[in-house]
């Protein structure tokens, strides 16, 4: 394995990757984030090898291996298969009777950014101000958050931690919320956890609402369509203006001389977006807002992912034509429209699948991230295939976010995020017995288990 000590930011840049040939080289460059972190946190021990023996393996990259082995080293899977040889020095888990799956990937949440929702002091998921592209979720992820062990015990091994629009009791008004980061749910520091520092620019698309709920008075405010449209148009215009400003800045940076402009962190952070390197993750639910966002991204020639996407079936043709993927909000939610089919959100993933639109499922939450497999299970109950149900929370988010070379399936060369269960991982009663994150055995112990054990012992 390599020992390149390049900065993670540069390595993450797809433009750099594009120029490189050969899978091994690419892989060697993708590792450094972890390697760097390890180099800094550990003494110069040789990499340890871990192996899983005799598990039923669902790789999601090919047929199920009824009984097989997985070998991992340096955080990566180095061998997998029915006959994969287990090196003599490997620390081996005898997984007879267990099933191995890729760890689940929650494509949008606020893990590490929020501890207790109602306690503002523990919430770091949103900022003041309309445009904050310079913010990065990674700079606030709390590695000691109790949510991390609780969540991974439910089989989620990596997440996109993203700035959020605020919502109950705070925030609001933000449009460009900041950059989302991809982290493994294990590590002593964020540097150890980090998979990719910046994976998307989160945009909270302006609401187009004649009704809004005012939390300060607990009442619904009504306004006319004209008024709502005016405000919406104004917000979109402001966003457009901001992009224009960023473009001017980009030009100045790329073509001008450094003496002739003052460094602006906000505008600088927009450059990867303008270059098409960093997608916009646009949080939008209703058809008109999704259409507005698509039109905007088209004009701005930037990449777009729909986030939440409640009404994405209403704009399915458009999404399909533009090849825009959707990271869906929870299947366990209710429609605001009483005439919508009662099972609208249960069938939505299957509906998108049938339409040929790329999608993933995400929690958009903190404490309910652990319901991710339940969310997928419900989609399966209402028409999505079981395999797609699994992929919707593993391979598909990886693909949509451009991380499928590293994550999403169990294949040689990928980051070894593996769960071992005693059954179908989408089933409610199934337990995650063992976890490997970043190629290392990771405890399923957590605050809840500890309290369970402690109070079970109360005389």
């Amino acid at each position, binding site marked *: 394995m390599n020992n390149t000590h390049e900065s993670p930011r540069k390595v993450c840049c797809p433009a750099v990757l594009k120029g490189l040939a050969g899978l091994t080289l690419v892989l060697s460059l993708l590792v450094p984030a972890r390697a760097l972190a390890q180099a800094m946190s550990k003494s110069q021990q040789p990499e340890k090898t871990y192996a899983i023996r005799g598990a039923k393996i669902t790789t999601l990259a090919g047929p199920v291996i009824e009984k097989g082995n997985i070998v991992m080293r340096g955080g990566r899977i180095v061998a997998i298969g029915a006959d994969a040889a287990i090196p003599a020095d490997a620390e081996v888990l005898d997984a007879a009777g267990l099933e191995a799956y890729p760890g689940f990937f929650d494509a949008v949440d606020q893990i590490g950014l929020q501890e207790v929702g*109602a306690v503002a002091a523990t919430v770091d998921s949103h900022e003041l101000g309309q445009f904050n592209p310079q913010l990065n979720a990674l700079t606030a992820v709390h590695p000691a958050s109790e949510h991390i062990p609780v969540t991974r015990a439910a089989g989620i091994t990596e997440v996109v931690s993203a700035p959020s629009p605020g919502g109950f009791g705070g925030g609001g008004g933000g449009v460009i919320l900041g950059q989302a980061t991809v982290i493994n749910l294990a590590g002593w520091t964020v540097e150890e956890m980090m998979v990719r520092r910046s994976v998307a620019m989160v945009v909270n698309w302006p609401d187009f609402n004649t009704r809004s709920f005012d939390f300060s008075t607990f009442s619904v405010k009504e306004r006319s369509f004209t008024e709502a449209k005016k405000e919406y148009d104004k917000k979109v215009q402001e966003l457009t203006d901001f992009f224009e400003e960023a473009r001017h800045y980009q030009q100045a940076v790329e073509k001008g001389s450094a003496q002739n402009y003052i460094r602006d962190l906000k505008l600088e952070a927009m450059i990867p977006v303008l270059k098409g390197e960093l997608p916009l993750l646009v949080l939008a639910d209703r058809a008109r807002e999704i259409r507005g966002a698509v039109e905007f991204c088209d004009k701005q020639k930037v990449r777009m992912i729909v986030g939440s996407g409640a009404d994405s079936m209403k704009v399915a043709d458009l999404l399909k034509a533009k090849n825009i993927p959707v990271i869906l909000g929870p299947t366990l939610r209710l429609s605001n429209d009483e*005439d919508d089919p009662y099972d609208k959100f249960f069938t939505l993933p299957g509906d998108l699948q049938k339409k040929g639109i790329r999608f993933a499922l995400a929690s958009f939450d903190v404490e309910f991230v652990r319901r991710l497999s339940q969310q997928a299970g419900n989609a399966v109950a209402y028409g999505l295939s079981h395999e797609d149900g699994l992929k919707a929370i593993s391979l598909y988010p990886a693909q949509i976010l451009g991380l499928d070379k590293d994550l999403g399936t169990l294949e040689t060369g990928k980051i070894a995020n593996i769960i071992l269960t005693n059954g179908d991982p989408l089933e409610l009663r199934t337990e995650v017995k063992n976890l490997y994150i970043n190629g290392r055995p990771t405890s399923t112990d957590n605050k809840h288990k500890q309290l369970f054990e402690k109070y079970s012992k109360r005389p």
Partner: protein
Amino acid sequence: MKNPSVLGTILLAGLFAGLLAPALAAQDSGVTLIENATILTVTKGTIENGSILIRNGKIAQVGKNIKAPEGATVIDAKGMYVTAGIIDCHSHIAVEGNVNEGSVAVSSMVGVGDVINPDDIDIYRDLAGGVTTANVLHGSANPIGGLNQVIKLRWGKDAEELKFEGAPPGIKFALGENPKRNNFNPPPGIPRRYPESRMGVMDVIRQAFVDAREYKKSWDEYNKRVAAGDKAAIPPRRDLKLEPLVEVLEGKRYVHSHCYRADEILQLMRLAEEFGFRIRTLQHVLEGYRVADEIAAHGAGGSTFSDWWAYKMEAYEAIPYNAAMMTRRGVIVSVNSDSAEEARHLNQEAAKTMKYGGMTEDEALRMVTINPAIQLGIDKRVGSIEPGKDADLVIYNHHPLSVYAVAQKVFIDGHIYFDREKDLAMREAQAAERKALLEKAKKAAEAEKKAGEKPGADRKPDSEKKPDGAAPPQGKDEKPKEPPKPPQQVAVAGFLD
């Protein structure tokens, strides 16, 4: 039978009866047989290839090889699972207006029974998730809240017909962050409401019961004077706030108390004991696992969430093992929803207790059927599949504790109130109706416009010039029925309810 027209009529009638048989027979004969099902009776084990005979809204017979009586509607449930209708011990559906009378610390004068809205679509949505009975509670803004209303989800019936006849009356209490209102701020200039601490919450409750005793005394004295023939006795004022509390003192009204922390749970139970009554259910009771022995000794039931936590400080030590742990220590436990969404998959939420704490299938199923029935005092009527009980049943296509189980048919009182096939079939008809109504309205508007546009014609009516809206239904403005739903909004229910 010689008269051909009479014969024709009879023949025609027969034909109609045949056509309408599936819809009418269940209503008319009142007899339905569900057969070939896996029956999870909840209380009497599982019957493979079993049948349930429904007669006049009640379960008449359960077992193998029941022959369909003549005229009975037969439902072949091969490969399906039947279980008792789900009972949600903590719901806020079907309430018109604000679910909280949050202005006062003691709001026992109000009752959700007064404002049941049978048109709330959440009734149907929850019904489609297998819920047949719900305990509709007042919100949790007050140490002593309003009166609750147990309903059956008889979608399509009016408010009074939804009410669970004979269900014991109850009242909502609430402890902790919500009644002390730490997570809320009144607008500028409006004073905060007492209490703002857990000390104050207990004080408010204790004071209210002191007042209730005094109130009772004043009536007792008055009645004594009247009985003694005193014509000069002035009757005390009837107090709608204190009357329900007197009923609580007399054991005639159940207390369903929202609570989180172990300390407040204990305090409330002790306070109740001080006044000689018992808490019927502890709602949420997220730290119940810490005082499970005390809860069991007091005799309260615990109605909790499956896996909610960390949405506020008092939920930070909530654990999904709670239901199982309380059960193991002898508490009757139910898993509730507190949310129209969550209610749709209470069967799934119950299933989690198998993973978190090792409940058996039966124990898990009990959490959303017979246990909430016991807690609500309606277990003689509902909660399990037993002869004599109400035919409130759900037919699932998978085991109800599986994530893949989808409710196919839901019976209440022997009638099918939800049928997935019919729901699917109805969707096109609804779209067509919508289109027709919009078309009709558009035409009418155009005709009216045309009439007003002719030069020299009557002046345009003023109403067309001034912006005036369609009349919204009364009272609707009070409840934030549709708060914008940011993806993170899921836990908001826990603050309001």
